[in-house]
Structure formats: structure tokens, C-alpha cells
């Protein structure tokens, strides 16, 4: 049998029904797992970022132990790979890619977006990060170091972006609302409107 040639939906239905018949995985478990998976979204990562911007102790924790920081803002980390937090600073910008597959900090950002999994993003980011960022209209100053993190193994990485100027007295909720998915991978940067 050539699995590669099978129609994908039929293959999923065949495998799912066989696993159900064998008592290994039930349709209810799959539904519950989808619901659980969708509890993780960029809103969680944005919460982590906003809290790190406002609270020096939490900022230090996030850089020292991203997993503990993620747990503290309600991400479900048990059984997940450890989380590393990459801090952008004036003069230093991080971008995350997985050239081998699609390693993504799912516990704090949810499902990886389409572009993160694409051949173009995986191939180009390590070699031409500025060109890739330009696809989002993102320009990083020429004198800023761009550090690309190729997420190849047992960690997952998210970017702690620079806090936009003029947000000193903002609440955590208002700051979190500024932070979007791409900011935490490094293809975009948060802006105060």
C-alpha cells in the first residue's frame, strides 16, 4: 500500500476509526484535545510580555526560566519542552525559525501560523533575515544586531520584544493588547498606536 498516495481525509478517517475500534483513542478524546489545544493562543504570550515589561522580578524570571514564567501566566507547561525567552534590547533583535520542521512555542502562542511552516520562511530566515522581515514591512535599523535563533531541538523559543516608547504608565491589559503573534517570533515589532 502506498500511503503517500492515499487521500488525506480518508486516511485520517481510516486511522481514527481503527484506533477507536481497538480502544486506543476515542473521538471524544480527540474533541477534548482540540478544545484543550485551543486554550493556548498569542494572548497568553502577550500576557507574559506585558507582565515582563511591568514587573522587574517577573522579567528576571522570564529570562532565567521561561517555563516557570509561562506557568505563572497560566500556560500549561507540563510535558511540554522548556521555554526559552529571548530578550530584544536596543541594538539587538531576535528572530525565531525552525529550519528542520516547525518547532514553535505552542504553549504560549498556540498553533504555528502558516508562514512559520513554509519552505520560504524556513530557508530564508537564517540567510536573509532582513529580507524576510521586509515581507511584513518590518525594518530593523542597520546598526541593530539581528540574531536568528534556529529552533532545532528540545527547547522552544519566544521573543520578548522591546517595549514601545510612551507606554510607561500603561496597564498590563493595555500593554498585552499591543503584542501580536509575529512580535513574539520577531518578524514584527509592537507599536503604540
Amino acid at each position: 500500500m502506498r500511503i503517500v498516495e492515499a487521500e488525506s481525509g480518508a486516511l485520517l478517517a481510516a486511522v481514527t476509526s481503527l484506533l477507536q475500534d481497538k480502544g486506543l483513542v476515542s473521538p471524544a478524546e480527540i474533541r477534548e484535545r482540540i478544545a484543550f489545544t485551543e486554550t493556548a493562543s498569542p494572548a497568553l504570550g502577550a500576557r507574559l510580555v506585558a507582565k515582563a515589561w511591568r514587573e522587574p522580578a517577573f522579567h528576571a524570571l522570564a529570562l532565567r526560566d521561561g517555563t516557570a514564567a509561562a506557568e505563572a501566566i497560566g500556560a500549561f507547561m507540563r510535558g511540554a519542552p522548556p521555554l526559552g525567552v529571548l530578550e530584544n534590547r536596543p541594538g539587538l533583535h531576535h528572530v525565531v525559525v525552525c529550519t528542520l520542521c516547525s518547532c514553535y512555542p505552542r504553549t504560549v502562542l498556540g498553533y504555528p501560523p502558516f508562514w512559520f511552516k513554509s519552505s520560504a520562511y524556513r530557508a530564508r530566515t537564517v540567510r536573509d533575515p532582513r529580507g524576510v522581515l521586509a515581507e511584513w514591512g518590518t525594518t530593523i535599523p542597520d546598526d541593530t544586531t539581528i540574531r536568528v535563533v534556529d529552533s532545532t531541538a528540545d527547547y522552544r523559543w519566544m521573543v520578548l520584544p522591546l517595549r514601545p516608547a510612551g507606554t510607561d504608565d500603561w496597564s498590563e491589559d493595555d500593554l498585552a493588547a499591543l503584542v501580536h503573534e509575529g512580535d513574539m517570533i520577531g518578524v514584527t515589532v509592537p507599536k503604540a498606536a
Partner: protein
Amino acid sequence: MSFAPGTRVRVADRWPEAEGPAHIRTPHYVRGRIGTVVAPLGAFPNPEDIAFARPAPAKALYHVEFSPRDLWADAGGDAIVIEIYEHWLEAA
């Protein structure tokens, strides 16, 4: 073997995937190249074994930084940081 931050390391110039079935987490573009250890990241069961359902001894994992211009003449970034297991590294 353990590598302190700042240690110059060379990535093994090995290509197991060209020899037969293999699952490798060391990107092709740094094989045989020299980088600098940034930080140890702990130890993890070797994915090269897990992928084949073999017993998987833990291997130390390091964050290693490379200069993109050592990898490609036309490289645009300033640094590339990669997780690499100890058995792919030797002191340079």
C-alpha cells in the same frame, strides 16, 4: 565532555542521512563549521535514537552561535544561534 560558554567548537562534518535512515537535529549548514558556545541548555534523550524507538541516552545540549558570513557569502544577519547536542561538537 562539557563546554563552557565562550568555548570555540567545531560541528562534526558527518552526514548520516546520506548513508541510510537517520533523524538528525543538526542543520546541514553548520556541519564542519566553527561556532561559539553561548550556554548549556541541559541534557535530553537523544532524538536520533527516540526517532527509531531505540533506548535514548541523555545528551548535553548547547546553544552555539555562528557568524552567518562564515556560512554564506551573501548572509544578511549578524548571528545564528542553534541548539546542538554534545556528540556533534568538539573543541576547535
